[in-house]
Structures are given as structure tokens and as C-alpha cells.
């Protein structure tokens, strides 16, 4: 019994008193982290709380200024991810960056290829890879190129690679942010298998449900300091949120009921790549939620409406009149705007200033003179920044200097400046911390109250259910059911019934 107790408290990773400063900013202040062997340990905290910095210290991308790290009871200091992996620690990054032209086998054995003399031994390498893939029930052969895999599969390859390198600690940074429910379930099964094999996992996520579902302990960070550790048994969601933000968050979803007016925007029989025969309408002041699995045609439909991808059939009506949209500039002119799900690729020019980013889509509308009216522009940007409670030292700073939540606010701002009739939001709160998330939710309600029609795609069921007046559920490119807010409030519809429809049921 005593021995078992002792074993239980055996830490695979011990970080004590870690501090790290960048220039004048103290990113980490005397931080602790204790991870037990074979557990899933959650890291929780708003963006900028210091989670990523600590992880980068652990895998050697940063060197801490003060403090010690012990791994498996021995002092541990590495100079980079490769050394970290050799020592037994691997990190799966949120944004995967695979070499698209390498095969799975080549990816797994990158930098440790099977060789015969100076030549590669591809055959042996492929066979070894196949064997490992079989253990994980991976559906592709080892010769498949990385570019042919889905995001979830690429992630799985990374995990398989980590395991094949004999990693005893795997750090996963927002691993489910681009996965649908089914893929998430599959990931969780893999995590449980790894746990059973004694691999410890540090799990970084903003999704509270997942942390409760999969993690054993949680360490909470706030503003570069360590708030504390809790066992997942016996801790409540509210307690964790208040640890994180240092204040009580009252209602997670601030949805207010506002007057719903006439139909603003109507879609009839819209067809394109990944979706067919989509019809729906959205009214003034309404928040229309779009639910469904990733890849079910939700984003594709919206990209089609916004003119990003071609549509092959169907009609669009704005305020009763048929409109044609072939490119985004036409959509913007008509008053239809879209916040893309992929902020990094479609949202911001990161090396340009906040001002330039905010003003970009509305330049043709607002700047008619040959030279820019920078005074007016500055006023517009500052007003919008105030409305969105944007936290930035100045609008002349480059967009990459902002945290994820504030970057998302800049994206919102650039579209709000266009004063849209229809605002399409694709995963508006992805990769955004709890505080900013709830701010974005209240903003959505404000927009609706002003008579905007809001269409929101979200993979987080609680978010769709908490924010929408009406929910459309997608399944394999078609709409498979519609749920009204009253039905959710009355309990006739719940997470299960919506998920069932998303999987094709009735």
C-alpha cells in the first residue's frame, strides 16, 4: 500500500521555479509543473498565461532564466526539439507543418533513416513503418504521401512518430482544434492506450469538456504565474474558470434575445464542391448556428456564398433581390462579410499594422480620394478597437504582436467596418482564450441587436447551442435537420440529438 502510494507520486517531469523574461516582459514567474508517469496532465490558462513558453522551455526552444527541470529523476537540459526527443520528450504542435511530399514512412523515420551504406534502405524502412502503423490501426499504407492525409491523420502520424522514438512524455498543444467529434474520439482512444503504456501526456486545450473527459490532473496558469494544481475528480468547471481568470465568469454564453425581423438573406439550392442543394434563410437580428462535423460542407458552403470558391448551382437573394457573387469583393460590396476559420492564412497580413489590416476590405468603400484619408481611417479604427475592447499598445503595431484573441478581434473589426448586413463567422472563437471568447460572444449579440444577420459555424456544440436562435445541422454536404432555440431551452433537443443528426441520424 505504502509502496503503491509512493509509486503514484513518482513524477516523470518536475519543473521548479521556472522564470523566463523576454526583454522587459516577464513571461514566466517562478512556475511549477509536476507530471506523474502515465497520466494526462492538462494545462489551462488564457492565451498569454505562459503555457506555450513553459512548453518551449521543456523542449529546448527557449532556455529558462531561472529554475530547474528534472526528467525521470535526472536533471534535464536540452538545446532543441531534437535533443528533447532523444531524451524522451516530444511535442505535437497545434499547427502541424509536415513535408507534404514525404511519405508516412519517411516522416516517421526523418533524421534516423534506415540505411545500407550511404544509400537509403527504403524497403526495410517501409516495412518497419507498416508494422508500427498496424499497431495503431492506421488506415493508410506507409508509402502514402503526407499531403494526401487529413489533418487528423497527420497528427496521428506525429504521435506515432513520437511513440516510435520511445517518447515517455508527449506534449499536445490544442490537439483537437481542427478535429471533428469522431476524430477527437479516436485521438482520445489513442491517448488512453498511450496512458496504459505508461506514457505521460501534457494536454493543452481551451476546451473544458475535453479536459474533464480525458485528463487526470490540471495545472492552471494565469499571467505567467502558476495558480495551482487540481485533481480532475472533485474540481468543478466554475472553479477552474475562476482560477484561470481570477474572477467569476457568470454565464458562459451571454445570449440575449433580440427582435427578429424580416428575411435578409436567402439561399436556394446552392451546390458546389462538398455541398449540394443547400437552402436556408436568415433574418435580421438572428444568429443562425451551423453545426456538423468538420468536412461536412459547412465552411465550403459559406466560402461559396462569399465568392472564395466557385458555386455550380443555386441562387442567392439579398433583401428579396437575386444577387450574383463571383469573388469576395462583390460580396463585400453587397454587405456580406465572412470571418474565415483559418486566421493565419485567410485573416491577417501579420507583418502589417493593425490599422492596415482593419482598413483593408473597406478601402474601396471609404477611400474615394486619390490619397488616403488617414485621419478618418484612424478614427474608424480606434472607435472599432474601443468597441471590441482590443488590447493593443497602438494601432500602428504589427498584427503578429497581438495574442490570438486580439488578432481575432482585428479580423472582426475589419469586417464590422464594412457595416455588413450578413456577417458569416466561421469558428469565431477557435484558438481564443476564455475571456476573449465570452467577449466575442457578447459582441455577436450586440451585432444581432443592431439588426445584422449573423451566421456562425462552430464545432463546439455548447457554443452553437448557447448562442444560436436556430441551428442547421450538416451531414455529408446536406442539411440534416434544424433545431430552434426554444426546443433547446425546453429540453426537447440536446447535445445528443444534434450530434446524432450530424452523424446522419434523424
Amino acid at each position, binding site marked *: 500500500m505504502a509502496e503503491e502510494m509512493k509509486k503514484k507520486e513518482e513524477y516523470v517531469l518536475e519543473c521548479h521555479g521556472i522564470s523566463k523574461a523576454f526583454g522587459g516582459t516577464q513571461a514566466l514567474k517562478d512556475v511549477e509543473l509536476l507530471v506523474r508517469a502515465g497520466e494526462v496532465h492538462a494545462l489551462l490558462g488564457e492565451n498569454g498565461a505562459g503555457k506555450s513558453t513553459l512548453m518551449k522551455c521543456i523542449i529546448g526552444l527557449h532556455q529558462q532564466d531561472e529554475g530547474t527541470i528534472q526528467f525521470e529523476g535526472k536533471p534535464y537540459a536540452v538545446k532543441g526539439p531534437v535533443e528533447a526527443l532523444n531524451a524522451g520528450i516530444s511535442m505535437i504542435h497545434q499547427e502541424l507543418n509536415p513535408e507534404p511530399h514525404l511519405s508516412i514512412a519517411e516522416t516517421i523515420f526523418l533524421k534516423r533513416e534506415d540505411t545500407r551504406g550511404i544509400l537509403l534502405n527504403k524497403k526495410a524502412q517501409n516495412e518497419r513503418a507498416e508494422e508500427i502503423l498496424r499497431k495503431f490501426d492506421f488506415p493508410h499504407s506507409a508509402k502514402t504521401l503526407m499531403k494526401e492525409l487529413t489533418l487528423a491523420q497527420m497528427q496521428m502520424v506525429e504521435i506515432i512518430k513520437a511513440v516510435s522514438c520511445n517518447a515517455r512524455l508527449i506534449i499536445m498543444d490544442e490537439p483537437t482544434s481542427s478535429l471533428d467529434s469522431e476524430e477527437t474520439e479516436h485521438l482520445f482512444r489513442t491517448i488512453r492506450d498511450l496512458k496504459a503504456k505508461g506514457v505521460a501526456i501534457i494536454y493543452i486545450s481551451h476546451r473544458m469538456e475535453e479536459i474533464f473527459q480525458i485528463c487526470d490532473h490540471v495545472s492552471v496558469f494565469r499571467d505567467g504565474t502558476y495558480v495551482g494544481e487540481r485533481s480532475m475528480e472533485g474540481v468543478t468547471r466554475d472553479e477552474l474558470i475562476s482560477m484561470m481568470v481570477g474572477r467569476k465568469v457568470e454565464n458562459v454564453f451571454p445570449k440575449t434575445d433580440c427582435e427578429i425581423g424580416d428575411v435578409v438573406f436567402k439561399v436556394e439550392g446552392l451546390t458546389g464542391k462538398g455541398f449540394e442543394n443547400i437552402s436556408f434563410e436568415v433574418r435580421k437580428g438572428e444568429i443562425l448556428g451551423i453545426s456538423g462535423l468538420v468536412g461536412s460542407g459547412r465552411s465550403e458552403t459559406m466560402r461559396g456564398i462569399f465568392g472564395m470558391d466557385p458555386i455550380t448551382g443555386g441562387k442567392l437573394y439579398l433583401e428579396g433581390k437575386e444577387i450574383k457573387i463571383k*469573388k*469576395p469583393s462583390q460580396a463585400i460590396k453587397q454587405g456580406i462579410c465572412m470571418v474565415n476559420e483559418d486566421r493565419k*492564412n485567410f485573416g491577417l497580413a501579420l507583418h502589417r499594422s493593425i490599422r492596415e489590416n482593419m482598413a483593408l*476590405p473597406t478601402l474601396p468603400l471609404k477611400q474615394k480620394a486619390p490619397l488616403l484619408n488617414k485621419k478618418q481611417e484612424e478614427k474608424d479604427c480606434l472607435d472599432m478597437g474601443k468597441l471590441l475592447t482590443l488590447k493593443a499598445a497602438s494601432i500602428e503595431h504589427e498584427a503578429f504582436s497581438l495574442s490570438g484573441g486580439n488578432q481575432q478581434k482585428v479580423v472582426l473589426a475589419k469586417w464590422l467596418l464594412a457595416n455588413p448586413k450578413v456577417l458569416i463567422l466561421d469558428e469565431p472563437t477557435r484558438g481564443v482564450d476564455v475571456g476573449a471568447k465570452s467577449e466575442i460572444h457578447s459582441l455577436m449579440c450586440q451585432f444581432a441587436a443592431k439588426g445584422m444577420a449573423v451566421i456562425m459555424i462552430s464545432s463546439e456544440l455548447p457554443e452553437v447551442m448557447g448562442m444560436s436562435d436556430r441551428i442547421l445541422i450538416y451531414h455529408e454536404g446536406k442539411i440534416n435537420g434544424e433545431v430552434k432555440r426554444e426546443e433547446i431551452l425546453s429540453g426537447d433537443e440536446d447535445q445528443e440529438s444534434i450530434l446524432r443528426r450530424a452523424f446522419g441520424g434523424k
Partner: protein
Amino acid sequence: MAKKEEKVLGMDREKFRMFMGKYGIGVILLIMMVFISIMEPAFRSGSNMVNVATQVSINAMIAYGMCLAITTEGIDLSVGAQLALVSCILGQLISNKGWGIIPAIVVAILVSTAWGTINGFLISKFNMFPFVVTLSTQLIIRGLAQVVSGGQAIPITDATFKQIYSAKLGPIPFPILVLILATILMYLVLHWTKFGRYVFAVGDNMQAAIASGVSIIKTKTATYAISGFLAGVAGVIFTAKTASAQSNIGVGYETDAVAACVLGGTSFAGGVTTVPGVLMGIFIIGFIYNGMNLIGIDSYYQSMTKGAVIIGAVLLDMVMNKKNS
């Protein structure tokens, strides 16, 4: 593990880094000028400064066009050949066909602008690599120049035409006036117009620019058209300077232009450049030639020095602006 903050020139390391990031190119320019002045006092004279500014005006036109192209994540390798084509058109029209100077210049610059437009259209419409497109059109344009000139140098004896290079307003030669005008216009275009904003947006993140309603075809075509136009202006000044139309001029001129852009902080990743930076880059290149001539160093070493200075400046910039730490 604790690291002491190092001091550089009495400043915090971080402060020093930010200072150099912003003004580093100016500091390099100053150090160079001081160094050359000490080696050769004649360098400091007003007449030498006017001399340098006149000489760099040709490269400046090309570099401004180049910095637009590089900022949209491209490059324009056709500028040297454009110079030759413009020169040959001028020679043919003025000396052989007896055209007036103004119409000849207008036609020549129209042709170079048209070639720039073709470059831009091929690049944006068919999504071809700018390097490949302009490498190829450069061959075509150079060939055209040879066809137009018949492979021979055509002297231009018209005195008024030569005035384009030598005329002065007070102490300031005409090419310097063109340089000042071009600098002001470029500054306005890049920082005070919608088009400038589009150039930056397209260069930094093309996908996001498309999603914001920016037309890639219009933006890039206009970018290369401007580059072609400016190369045309450079061609006119160059031809006035030599008073002769030749199809083999301008070889390697794109190198100096690219060098000036890079020295001036233009990023090959796109989306970042400043007109004052490029202007300083242009003068650094000019001072390398002028200073070494004055000191009396062989031209072989000028080329080597230029290469070394560029690598040094970019290296310094990388170290100063380490983005990932």
C-alpha cells in the same frame, strides 16, 4: 542559467536591437560616408555628392520598381533588358526616323510599360513564378532591342536630348530632380494610396488579401507595369548620358536594384519595404562605386565589396531582428 543583460554601445541589448532594426541602414550609410571621407577627403565635396546623386538616379528608378515587385513576393529581372530596348527605340526614332524628342520618349516608355504589364499579367493571371516569367521576357526584350537597333550602336547627336542628363536647375542636374520626384511619388503611392495598401497586403498574405476583396490580377499587373515604366525612365536618362543607343546596355542592372532593395530592408518574403530605406540602399551602392573609385581601388574589388556589404547588411538585419525569440 541566469543571463546578464548585455550592454551594447551603452544601450540595453533589446533597445539596441530595436534601434538598429529601425535605423540600422542609416547607421551603415553614415559609417560608410565617414570612412570614405577619412580615406579620401575629396569625397566630402559638394560637387562629388551631386555627382553621386546623378549617377545613382538610373539605378534608383529601377530599384523603386524592383522594390514594388519584391514586396508582392516577386522580382523583375527584365529591367536591364528594358533599358536596352528603350535606348534602341530612342536611337531608331530620333536619329534614323527623325522623330521629335518628346514623342520618341513617350513611345519608348509606353513600350517598356507595356512589357511590364505583360510581365504582371502572366504572373498574376496564370500564377507563374515571377522569376521565370521575367527571366524569359528579359530574353525576348533583349532580342527585340537587337532587332530594333539592327545590332549596331546608333549615336544620338541631338543636343537637346543630351540635355536630359546634363541640364541643371541651379546647381542641381535634371536626373536628380527626376530622382526627387520619383521618390516623393513612390512614397505617396506606397504609403498614401489604396494601391500601396494592396501591394503590402498581397505580398504579406495573398490568401488573406483575396479574402478581403483585393484583386490580385489588378495589383500585380499594376506593380510590374510601374516597374516597366520606371525602367523606361531609367532608359531615357541612361541613353541621354551616353548619347548613343545600344542593345547591350543594362546588363546586370537588376542586381544593383535588388541589392539596393535588400539593403533598404525590403523582405523577399514580401509585404515589407520602405521608400526611405530603399533610397538609402541606393546611395550605399552608389557610394561603394564612387568611394572606391576615389580611393583608387580596382573595379574587381568593387564588385566583391558590393557582394560582401549586402551579405553583411542582411546578416546584421537577421541578427538584429531575430523574429522567433
